[in-house]
């Protein structure tokens, strides 16, 4: 049974097996993801938006902060594709320049929340006992606090600004992830295949990371991709309350919230275009999320 013993009973199969290599779970995942066209397209669009955001200053005729008081509140036209805002700034230029920041806020804040939440949920579900009690009670506390309020509080205490907005959104995303992962973990840790991994000598880290976590990810991904939208919108509420990023910075949420004053006055383009930008981004994230989720589930491969 040692490798040296192999040749004794070796069949021709071993010869072919020289060339093959068992893919790890990650490799398998990529292989399946590659088959999902829609998800890949969504990923490319996101990437394109993000990259274009870097190119925007060199490509577009207007900068995000070029004001023009003679042309304020213009509707969409050939010169200003998405119209201008109350300072006569080109909304399209602001949108493109803002993509970087908004996507960063959406993704990073949820990402941080998810990372901590997942770890907390895994540990709580897996070890139970006081770790579980503390984690869950903390999440009860955080949860019981309306999210926007928590964000208001955090920003009010830490002061406004980009990083604090991210922290605020991250903190109140955290308990949801912890809950989702914990409940999945509770179910999976009793499963026979986890016991089998333990019997094979796997450490707790391996068991949690390789056998339990992937099983909880489908719900996590769904929540994660939805949450990105919510988090950009939370940034909107914060901006509206004057607690967001610096007001002159082109950030989608901030643009939406300041445009609101002009909605009723008939200047819909001030809010529609940033809204559309958020919508497309969130849609792409969700399509990508669906792809990731399906790629995680080998049973869905053939249908």
């Amino acid at each position, binding site marked *: 049974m040692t490798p040296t013993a192999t040749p004794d009973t070796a069949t021709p199969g071993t010869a072919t097996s020289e060339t093959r290599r068992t893919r790890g779970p990650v490799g398998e995942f990529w292989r399946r993801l590659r088959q999902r066209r829609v998800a890949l397209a969504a990923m490319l669009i996101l990437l394109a938006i993000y990259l274009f955001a870097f190119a925007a200053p060199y490509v577009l005729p207007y900068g995000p902060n070029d004001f023009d008081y003679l042309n*304020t509140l213009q509707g969409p036209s050939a010169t200003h594709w998405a119209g201008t805002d109350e300072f006569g700034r080109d909304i399209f230029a602001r949108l493109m320049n803002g993509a970087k920041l908004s996507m960063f806020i959406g993704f990073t804040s949820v990402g941080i929340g998810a990372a901590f939440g997942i770890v907390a949920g895994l540990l709580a579900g897996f070890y139970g006992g006081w770790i579980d009690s503390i984690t869950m009670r903390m999440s009860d506390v955080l949860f019981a606090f309306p999210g926007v309020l928590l964000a208001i509080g955090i920003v*009010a205490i830490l002061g406004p600004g980009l990083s604090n907005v991210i922290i605020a959104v991250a903190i109140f995303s955290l308990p949801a992830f912890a809950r989702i992962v914990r409940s999945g973990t509770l179910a999976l840790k009793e499963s026979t295949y986890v016991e089998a991994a333990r019997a094979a000598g796997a450490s707790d880290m391996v068991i949690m990371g390789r056998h339990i976590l992937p099983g909880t990810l489908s719900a996590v991904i769904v929540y994660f991709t939805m949450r990105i939208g919510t988090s950009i919108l939370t940034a909107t509420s914060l901006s*509206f309350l*004057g607690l967001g990023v*610096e007001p002159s910075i082109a950030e989608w949420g901030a643009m939406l919230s300041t445009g609101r004053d002009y909605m*009723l*006055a008939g200047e819909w383009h001030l809010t529609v275009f940033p809204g559309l930008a958020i919508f497309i981004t969130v849609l792409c994230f969700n399509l990508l999320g669906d792809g990731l989720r399906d790629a995680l589930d080998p049973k869905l491969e053939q249908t």
Partner: protein
Amino acid sequence: QDIKVAMDQVFHTLDPQDSNYNVDFSSMEGVFERLISFDEDMGLVPQLATEWEANEDATQFTLTLREGVVFHDGTPFNAEAVKANLERLADQSQNLAKNSMFNMVDSVEAPDETTVVINLKEPFGAMINTLAHPAVVMHSPASLEEGDVSDNPVGTGPFRFDEWVPGEQLRVVANEDYWDSEWPKVDSVTFYPVPENATRVSMLLSDEVQFVYVLPAELAENVESNDNYEVLSREGLTVWTAAMNMNKEHFQDPKVREAFNLVVDQEAFLQVVYSGHGSVPDSPIAPNTQFHEAQEPALSTDVERARELMEEAGYGDGFEVEIWARNNSTEVRMLQFLKQQLSQINVDATVLPLEGATRSERLFGSNVNPETIEYDLAIGGWSPSTGDADWHLRPVYATEGFIPAMYNMAFYSNEVVDGAVAEALATADPEARAAAYAKAQEQIWADQPAIFLAVDEKMAGRKKGVTGVIKMPDGTMQYSHAAVEE
């Protein structure tokens, strides 16, 4: 007939004497009366007092009262009632919001039924205007005894209080026994607090209310364009400025302050921030304020000259500034505008919109130190509710007004101004006061301790056919003479 009004804030209290808020004054305008009131142009008009006079050095004021007036609870209105109210205002231990306005009152006498004499500890030339302040209402002495004036107001006005559901609505109904038999002409007036601008306007446009109080400038056109509604617009008393912190070295140089005023385009400011509804200031105080005097030269915009001045002052490469303001959308727009304008003279602005309570803590908190306070520019608007120059020039531009005590955020201190303000207070003679205030305005205009931005318009939306519900330049509204045309 019933009139419904949408207000921009919630009501805080039903006792104007204990409030700092225009909504409270406005909603109680029909329930309470003052001794002296303002007309639409902030001119003084008799209300419960028919005549008034002051002694030479402005330390004693004598008022003659209207006869035949009774409070809603039947208590007669007389000199004792006035004495009770004024003593309440002067009693600093009451902790009322408006106590400090009356801290110079020494005693109040009621020699007969219809005469009241107010004795001051020191001269105070602005006393009559102070008495006309919308907070200085006459409560029924009986209700003051009862002690529940903050939620059960009893006055002498054409409307009596009916019900208040905090956060939801406030209703007053016609007082059949009003002393002026011509009024009231409507059966009730109901006020709804509606902080959301768009909702407020939507309520008017769908006929749920007949009057919106505080109509945001962006939405004025919306109302105007509809045949059934009209926009009431009055030039207000508020002068918007960005105070330049003169404890900062760069603002001690007059050239820099001049450059800042030159680089900012006030016309554009009006357009961007107020959709054109307002005017460019021509003095530190607003045209409707008593003793206003237009100053020369008028504000102008000259970016080239501004650059030169900065060059001369040694700041050709500019410097960094921090600008503070409130976090409402109007002031946030001001912040952005200033940031853009200042960038033309290489001044790099960090803007900081502050949430209300945080702002008052950082500007007016007890541990505020003028020497170390961080802002370079602070945006603010000041309106003197007395309609008198004193309550603008003294808190905003006199040395005694340094924050956190009052409202001098520029830490502007000038002997001429301080002297003129004191001089004007020492007399009740309008001409002498006018001369002193002219001197002060001139000096401030020359020194430019602030970037003068705008005098905004106070706007309200009204259903056509409704009359007598009006907006005042000080930002309050009046409805005693409300009527609905058929």
